[in-house]
């Protein structure tokens, strides 16, 4: 990784010092039937792990976290804790909520440093499961299945495991070491992670299905879709996810130093791309969004972070066309101002409508597209799975798809009112899919026995 990246992309928040961790863990009330536990999608026994920090049982603490959440180290850094555990802390009313995320990071950091294996695999049960995709959903399903005694193989298209945790969430919030450690924990449990294998390209999907007792589809989503406007092919137009990935892998070779940048979109990806651009030396970074702050899908903490990093926001602004010079390089972004129609659209949000004649141009050197992710419909259809515009249909109780042997979890099912596109809900869904598989295969073997 080049010097600039390792310098500018170092983790923003340092962890708690031992003194801070001791003070903060002793502040926790150790509530009984605590609301924070219910607010965590993976149901981590938060008071228990915090008490273990207070008693000096750091290994035990990390085990409590990782037991409920196989990507608990990642989550300690990227979860919207204000909305989840910390938002539910009873001390919100009496004083200040406990810094649950930071304490979670303190305990898991210690486990990362120790390098010890936290969980043993279950005694082998002779059954085989394939997991496609090694993001949080895939890792989580694989970990639970390994603990039940399944022989688990993960197939991952990329060179390294971890999904968006490894390639998509900016290093200054989530360094790669963290998600790679989580994947390594699985390896120490005997889970085979075959990287560099794209199912459907390097391996026929049917073969996988034939060779395993069940398959977990945890492939997430694809790249950023096209804006569908003129000028998208110009030099200086970036796909946010590819841009972030290039900074995480150290192959970034773009030219954002001193650039004026506009990011289009206002979700997690837009914020990460914008703050990323700041760290790549951009002179000015604006986020253009066609609605307003209240409709923005990025979390409050992300918005605040972007503001602190100097990112500007242009609300009610939609791109119309990207303009370039003769050499094919971006020079301007033409936008149009929008108006919100209060009656909600299909997704329940107010509908933005262009104000006629309000077009204007911004001088820019780069445009970053961050308007969501496409769906991996090809693979989904190669298995003949029912889906709705690329969102795989599942039974919400079991995460089973329309194919009886195939289960799906994580972003690949996001969009059906199924959790949120977050690491923590992907992890929980992975667990639930694993439990459903275990129930099903157990029952089958009981019937045939």
């Amino acid at each position, binding site marked *: 990784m080049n010097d600039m990246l390792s310098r500018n992309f170092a983790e923003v928040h340092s962890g708690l010092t*031992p003194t801070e961790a001791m003070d903060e863990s*002793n*502040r926790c009330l150790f509530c*009984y039937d605590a609301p924070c536990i219910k607010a965590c999608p993976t149901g981590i026994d938060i008071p*228990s792990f915090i008490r*273990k920090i207070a*008693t*000096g*049982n750091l290994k*035990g603490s990390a085990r409590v976290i990782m037991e409920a959440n196989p990507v608990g180290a990642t989550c300690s850094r990227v979860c919207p804790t204000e909305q989840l555990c910390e938002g539910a802390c009873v001390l919100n009313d009496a004083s200040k909520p406990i810094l649950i995320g930071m304490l979670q990071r303190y305990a898991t950091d210690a486990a990362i440093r120790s390098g010890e294996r936290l969980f043993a695999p279950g005694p082998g049960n002779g059954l085989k499961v394939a997991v496609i995709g090694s993001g949080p959903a895939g890792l989580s399903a694989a970990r639970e299945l390994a603990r039940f005694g399944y022989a688990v193989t993960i197939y991952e298209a990329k060179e390294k495991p971890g999904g968006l945790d490894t390639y998509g969430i900016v290093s200054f919030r989530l360094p790669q070491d963290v998600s790679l450690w989580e994947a390594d924990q699985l390896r120490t449990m005997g889970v085979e992670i075959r990287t560099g294998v794209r199912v459907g390209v390097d391996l026929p999907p049917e073969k996988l299905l034939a060779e395993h007792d069940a398959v977990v589809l945890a492939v997430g989503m694809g790249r950023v879709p096209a804006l569908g406007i003129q000028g998208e092919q110009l030099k200086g137009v970036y796909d946010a996810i590819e841009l972030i990935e290039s900074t995480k892998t150290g192959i970034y070779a773009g030219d954002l130093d001193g650039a004026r940048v506009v990011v289009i979109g206002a979700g997690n990806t837009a914020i990460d791309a914008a703050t990323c651009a700041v760290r790549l030396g951009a002179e000015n970074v604006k986020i253009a969004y066609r609605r307003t702050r209240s409709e923005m899908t990025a979390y409050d903490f992300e918005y605040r972070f972007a503001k602190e990093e100097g990112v500007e926001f242009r609300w009610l602004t939609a791109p119309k066309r990207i303009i370039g010079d003769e050499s094919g390089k971006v020079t301007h972004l033409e936008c149009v101002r929008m108006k919100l129609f209060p009656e909600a659209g299909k997704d329940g949000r107010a509908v933005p409508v262009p104000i006629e004649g309000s077009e204007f141009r911004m001088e820019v050197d780069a445009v970053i597209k961050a308007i969501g992710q496409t769906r991996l419909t090809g693979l989904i259809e190669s298995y003949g799975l029912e889906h709705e515009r690329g969102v795989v249909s599942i039974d919400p109780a079991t995460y089973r798809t329309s194919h009886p042997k195939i289960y799906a979890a994580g972003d690949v099912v996001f969009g059906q009112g199924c959790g949120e596109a977050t690491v923590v809900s992907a992890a929980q869904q992975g667990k639930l899919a694993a439990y459903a598989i275990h129930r099903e295969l157990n029952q089958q073997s009981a019937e045939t026995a």
Partner: protein
Amino acid sequence: MADLSVDFAGIRSPNPFWLASAPPTNTGYQVQRAFEAGWGGAVWKTLGNPVINTTARFAGLHLGAQRVAGFNNIELISDRPVEANLREIYETKKRFPNHALIVSLMVDPKREAWHEIVKRAEAAGADGLELNFGCPHGMAERGMGSASGQVPALVEAQTGWVKEAARTPVIVKLTPNITDITSTAVAAVQGGADAISLINTINSLMGVDLDSWNTIPHVAGKGAHGGYCGPAVKPIALNMVAECARHPEVNVPISGIGGVSTWKDAAEFMLMGAAGVQVCTAAMHHGFRIVEDMIDGLNNYLDEKRIARVSELVGRSVGKYTNWGDLDLSYRIVARIDNETCINCNKCHIACEDTSHQCIERHADEEGQPFLTVREEDCVGCNLCSIVCPVDGVISMVELPSEAESMTWNERQTALALLAKDREEPSAKEVAQP
């Protein structure tokens, strides 16, 4: 995974964590819940003559943000019928045959009374008996509890009576409200005790309300001294356990009680000679679930130290506890301050300046940044600065190579005496030469 099981004076328990005789062990419902939560044993709330309890019984000492640093109570022994208790003891033992169930007893200092209650408790299935010679309030006014427990002869006699009737191991629970705990510990052993447990609660008055001028707690405007326990009493309890453990005549297992709240406390008590521990206040503060981390933490600690069985911890530090006169006067440590991590609160400076040996100096560098230095030649190595320092690791007490040969006070006195004798009788020494 280390083996946490213990054999305490012949009583087997899956782990060294027992609930002490107190409100947590008042009923079968509670003890069974505790066993389900993971407690290895329980000492049932003391049985004896019928009593009536007051309302308003407890008070807590809160120090800053720390709630229940200390705890005080004026509760007596069980106020439920003995028959009901015995029935529940029987049921509990039947449901949990592998857990340790000890019944605590307290009756009038009469031989027949002890014989009778011992037989009934054993008939109900008790794995062992604990004699409550410790309760410092209420019962003591009636000649029981610590009133008996403060008189070595009474401890010895009553223990002897119990041993005449008992078939299960007899544990004598000692009161700390006495000048020398080993005197009653030895008396218990001489009376035939199979083990001792300590400490019961310490005489205390929690406070006075500054508006009503009532005691805390009060019963209709009046108060009486209570028994003190919880984290604050641990050092007192630990010393008493250690004094018993290193006493040559106290050669029976010890159950450590007093302020045990975490696995670390338990490990310390065991290192100082306790073969197991009992807990009351911490369970009352947080519920039975605290035992999960006690077990987990102790397990991880033993694994880390590569110790296979918890019993191997017992007594490992006793040899390090001695008389002041046997401490090496040539050993020298001094304070070192790490100015990199120091936050400049100056607490160490003022503590040393006002109340110790005036050797922490305040300075400023060229940029006016404050920093502190220790004048090592004047530092007596008292530890005060490192105790008041709010940040771990900033002040370390470092050992200096000692300038003189190792020498204890006792050795010094012996040497001086020899020297004086030499001077007085020079010829005697010459005669003594071989």
